[in-house]
C-alpha cells in the first residue's frame, strides 16, 4: 500500500513539474523587442545562387533590427559557412521599425542547403532574437 501510494505521488509530482516547466517556457516566448518576422530561402536565377528574403519588425522604433547571422548547412546537416549581419550588407538596419530585404549568397550549384537564420531587434537596453530554420533549397 505504501509503495503504491509513493509511486502515485511521485508520478503526479513528476507530471506537475513538467507542466510547470512547459508553462514557464511558454510564457517567456513573448518578446519585448520583436513583433513579427519571416525568413525564406529560394533558388536564385544565377548558378549557385541562394536568395534569403527576410522581414523583421520591431515593436517600436529600434536602435538596431534585422538579421544577425545566416548559418548555412548542406542537406546532410554539415556546416558550410556563416554570414554575419551588418548595416553594410543590408542585413541590419538602424533607427527604424522594419528591416526587410533579400540577401543573395552564392553556393555550389546542384547542392542542397538549408540555413539557420537569427533575427533580432534591440530597443535601448532590451535585446531579443529568434532562430528560424529555412527549408532545404537546391542551388541552381
Amino acid at each position, binding site marked *: 500500500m505504501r509503495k*503504491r501510494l509513493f*509511486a*502515485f505521488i511521485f508520478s503526479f509530482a513528476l507530471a506537475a513539474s513538467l507542466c510547470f516547466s512547459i508553462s514557464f517556457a511558454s510564457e517567456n*516566448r*513573448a518578446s519585448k523587442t520583436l*513583433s513579427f518576422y*519571416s525568413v525564406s530561402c529560394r533558388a536564385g536565377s544565377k548558378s549557385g545562387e541562394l536568395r534569403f528574403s527576410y522581414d523583421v519588425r520591431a515593436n517600436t522604433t529600434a536602435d538596431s533590427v534585422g538579421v544577425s547571422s545566416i548559418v548555412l548547412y548542406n542537406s546532410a546537416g554539415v556546416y558550410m559557412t556563416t554570414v554575419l549581419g551588418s548595416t553594410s550588407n543590408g542585413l541590419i538596419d538602424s533607427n527604424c*521599425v522594419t528591416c526587410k530585404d533579400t540577401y543573395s549568397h552564392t553556393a555550389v550549384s546542384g547542392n542542397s542547403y538549408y540555413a539557420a537564420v537569427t533575427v533580432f531587434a534591440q530597443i535601448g537596453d532590451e535585446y531579443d532574437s529568434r532562430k528560424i530554420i529555412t527549408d532545404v533549397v537546391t542551388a541552381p
Partner: protein
Amino acid sequence: MAQENCEKYAYLDQLSTQQLEQLLLADTEDPSGRDTSEVVFHILEVLQTREDVPAMEPVDVAQAWEEFQQYYNTPEGEGQSLYLPREDSERPEKDACAASKFRSRLPALWKTARIVAATMAILLSLMVGAQASGLNIFGTLAQWTNDIFHFGIDKESGLAENYKLFLDLLEERDIPRSYAPSQYPSDFIANEPLVRDDDSSSLVEISFSNPNGSTFSIGITRYASPDIIPDRTFEKDSSKVEIYTSSSKSFYILYNEGSLMATWADGVLSESIWGDISSDDIKSMIDSIGGS
C-alpha cells in the same frame, strides 16, 4: 440414536410439567440403581423447552370475535388489508449488495488511475527529452498557443502630407488606398513613409509618434504571388487573441509585452497595425478602413 430416543420417550411430552418433576423426584429416591439417565435427560430437555417458550394465555374466542367485529370489520375498512404493507425488507440487502459491488470496483479504478498517471508522466518526460535534443516538439504544439501566433498571410481627414504620400505609395504598388485607415489618433504625428521592395514583395509602411514617446506603425505588404508568401511568426504573450471584424475584414489583435498588434491578410495582401497603441485606438483605425 437421538431420533430413536425421541420416539421412545415421546409419551413423556404429553405429561404436564408437574408430573415430569414428580418423575424426576421419584428417580432420585429410587433405591434400585437402575440406569434411567436417558429418561432423565429427555425429561430435562422437555422441561427446558417449556421454559424457553413462554406459556400462552388461553384465548377468549368470543371476546376476540367481538373486538374484530367492532374495530376491523367496519365499512371504512372495506377492501383494506389487515396487515401492514410489507416493507422492502430486501432493500437493505440490495443496498448492501450495491455497496459491496462498488467497494469491489475501487481496487480496479485505483489500478487504472495509476496506469494513466504513469503513462502521462512517461509521455511528458519523452517530450522534454526530445525537446532537449533539438526537436521542437513544444514549438510545433505551440502553433496556436499562448507563446506565438502563426498567420497565413493583411481616411483622410485633415491628414498630414506624409500620410497622403503613404496613400499615394500604396496606389503605386497596386495596393488599394481604401485598405489603409482613413483616420489615426489625433495626438500622433505621421512620419515619412518607407518602401521596402524586393523580388518577393513590396511593403509600404508609415510610423507615427506622439509627444509622450509612443510610436506605432501601419504596414501593408503585397506579395508577388501566393506561392511565395512566407510563414510569418507573431510574438505574443499569454493574453487571448482577439478577432475584431469591421467592413468584412477580420483583424487578429495580439498582445505582446505591452505592445499591440492587429493583422489581417487576404490573398497576396497583408496589413498590420502595431506598436504602443491602445486597443480602442486600433479598433477605431480598423473601423475607418474603407472610409472617406
